């Protein structure tokens, strides 16, 4: 099998190998993350795309080991700077969280604690990870707010989250995440909940901060437009698995997996907001977790599916251009139309 680092030109800062995270509900096990592989290059951005429910958020929470009951990481390795985070103690993990790896979330409106001021919440990061006093922490918080482009930060630190707009709150989240100068920032759909102009501003800010601070980013999104603008590599996820993992330029020029092609065909124009409708070009919907296809997870919706697709799960394999793809069409075992053109 291929290694996720194979396609990187850079050193990896994070490598996720065969990660498996399940939720154990009363009736059955939901394999939310089912053998995920990818690597994040140092100083660059990896995008993770996929429809709602494909396991993007659970993957990112697994990296920081923030999965709560009834969820459990049941296998795999998460190598951060060569060390497996799954081997670390809870106390060691706490030193990683918010310090070496930070996270920002999909929901800026609810991700800040309503009973503490913005300043108190940013300061907390400093006080946990850097042994400094209250005053100093507050001063640095003001600097952070300045860095993320919040006007009159001296006043803002004293405000409560409900006094700020969604875009401002997401800036505060970014300030909080970057406070301790992390090497890796995981951004879980940081702009989904914001309106279009604010989205562009936040993405611009993140790119600018990456250049200035040099951190690596995992950009989770279901918007391929965001990937095109901000990412260097991209992993396409479907039902808890990576189905295609490629350099961004290659993915847009020559998408290989029928699911990726479907996503690209349904790429929403930036000036109109289609909301949840944007993926309807791919026929059918994601199967329910108790009815998991036994072969390729995408087979029931795939226009090219043949016998082997329904029967057997393909592996993630290297394609001729050095990227990685999980699809029978590109293997010697392919039993369908030999002339099939997926992206024709």
């Amino acid at each position: 099998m291929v290694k996720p680092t194979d396609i990187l030109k850079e050193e990896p800062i994070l490598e996720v190998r065969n990660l498996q995270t399940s939720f154990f509900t009363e009736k059955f096990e939901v394999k939310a993350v089912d053998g995920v592989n990818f690597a994040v290059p140092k100083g660059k951005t990896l995008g993770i795309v996929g429809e709602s429910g494909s396991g993007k958020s659970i993957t990112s929470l697994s990296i920081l080991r923030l999965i709560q009951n009834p969820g459990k990481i049941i296998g795999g390795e998460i190598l951060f700077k060569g060390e497996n985070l799954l081997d670390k103690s809870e106390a060691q993990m706490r030193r990683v969280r918010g310090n070496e790896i930070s996270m920002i979330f999909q929901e800026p409106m609810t991700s800040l604690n309503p009973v503490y001021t913005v300043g108190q919440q940013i300061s907390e990061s400093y006080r946990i990870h850097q042994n400094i006093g209250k005053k100093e922490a507050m001063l640095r918080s003001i600097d952070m707010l300045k860095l993320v482009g919040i006007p009159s930060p001296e006043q803002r630190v004293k405000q409560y989250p409900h006094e700020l707009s969604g875009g401002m709150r997401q800036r505060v989240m970014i300030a909080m995440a970057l406070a301790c100068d992390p090497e890796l920032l995981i951004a879980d759909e940081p702009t989904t909940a914001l309106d279009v102009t604010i989205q562009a501003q936040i993405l611009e800010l993140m790119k600018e901060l990456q250049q200035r601070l040099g951190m690596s980013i995992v950009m989770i999104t279901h918007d391929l437009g965001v990937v095109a603008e901000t990412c260097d590599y991209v992993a396409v996820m479907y039902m808890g698995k990576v189905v295609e993992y490629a350099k961004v330029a290659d993915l847009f020029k020559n998408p290989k997996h029928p699911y990726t092609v479907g996503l690209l065909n349904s790429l929403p124009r930036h000036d109109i907001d289609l909301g949840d409708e944007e993926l309807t070009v791919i026929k059918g919907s994601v199967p329910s977790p108790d009815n998991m296809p036994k072969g390729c997870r995408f087979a029931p919706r795939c226009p090219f599916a043949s016998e082997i697709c329904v029967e057997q799960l393909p592996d993630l394999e290297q394609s001729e251009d050095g990227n990685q793809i999980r699809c029978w069409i590109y293997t010697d075992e392919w039993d369908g139309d030999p002339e099939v053109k997926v992206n024709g």
Partner: protein
Amino acid sequence: MFTFIIRRLVQTIPVLIGVTILTFSMIHLVPGDPAQIMAGESASPQQVELMRERLGLNDPIPVQYFDYVSGVLQGDLGNSVRSGRAVSDEIAIRIRPTVELATMSTALSVFIGLIAGVLAAVRRNTFGDTFIMLVALFGLSMPNFWLGIMLIQYLAIGVDIFGFNTGIFAASGWGTWQQQVLPVITLGVAGAAIIARMTRSSMLEVIDQDYIRTARAKGVKERVVVYRHALKNAMIPVVTVVGLQFGSLLGGAVLTESVFAINGLGRFMIDAIRARDFPIMQGGVLVLAFMFVSVNIVVDILYRFLNKRIDLN
């Protein structure tokens, strides 16, 4: 915050006026002739007339009300029919045990209720959670006079175990700590149970919120997540319940006061009602209403202090 407190105080003025109208009308609303009732059944017509004059019942109603309110404002609540002493003095003697009892048992309820509720919530659906909630249900469904009697039986009168008598506390009265322990427990248990249940459900709601995940992602210790990030939010609905409870204990600890023979306001009021001692009843209701209103103001201020999102101005 300061303007909020001022505004809140101003708002209570109509409430207090309403209360005085109510207590004033008490005497006119009961069936029968108040002068006759208070003078006693065997009183002669002259005595009844004298009583009527003493109570000012011959004046027009608005004049009577005005006299009443100006008396109240000067701290004059009239005189007890039975003892002849000033109502304010009579109430002052009894109010201390009642307020102390209510305060101590509320403090006990809050202390035990919060800890039990948080522990149950963080252990949700485990044996510990079920156990705590079962104990709380038991505490809630136990009549508190019965609990009082049991406590007196085993911890005041006591039983001998290996030559040691368990009767370490006093069974009656109010003043020393030996006298205070049992009534405070008796009155605090039900409150603790209610607060524990409230805290648990409130915590369970809060612990799944996005901002709790944010705190964990920052590297905050789980203990700090629970007590600093979650509990402060979970407390918001609990504060209201605590306030209501404290208010009701101020007026409603009659049973406990009776079981432990505490010379408190509740018991005193019941006696006054039985004896048709109207000035005492009026004065007592007025004082209780005043305390209730004050407690409510304190609760509102606390609530606002905790919940930054409401803007009452």
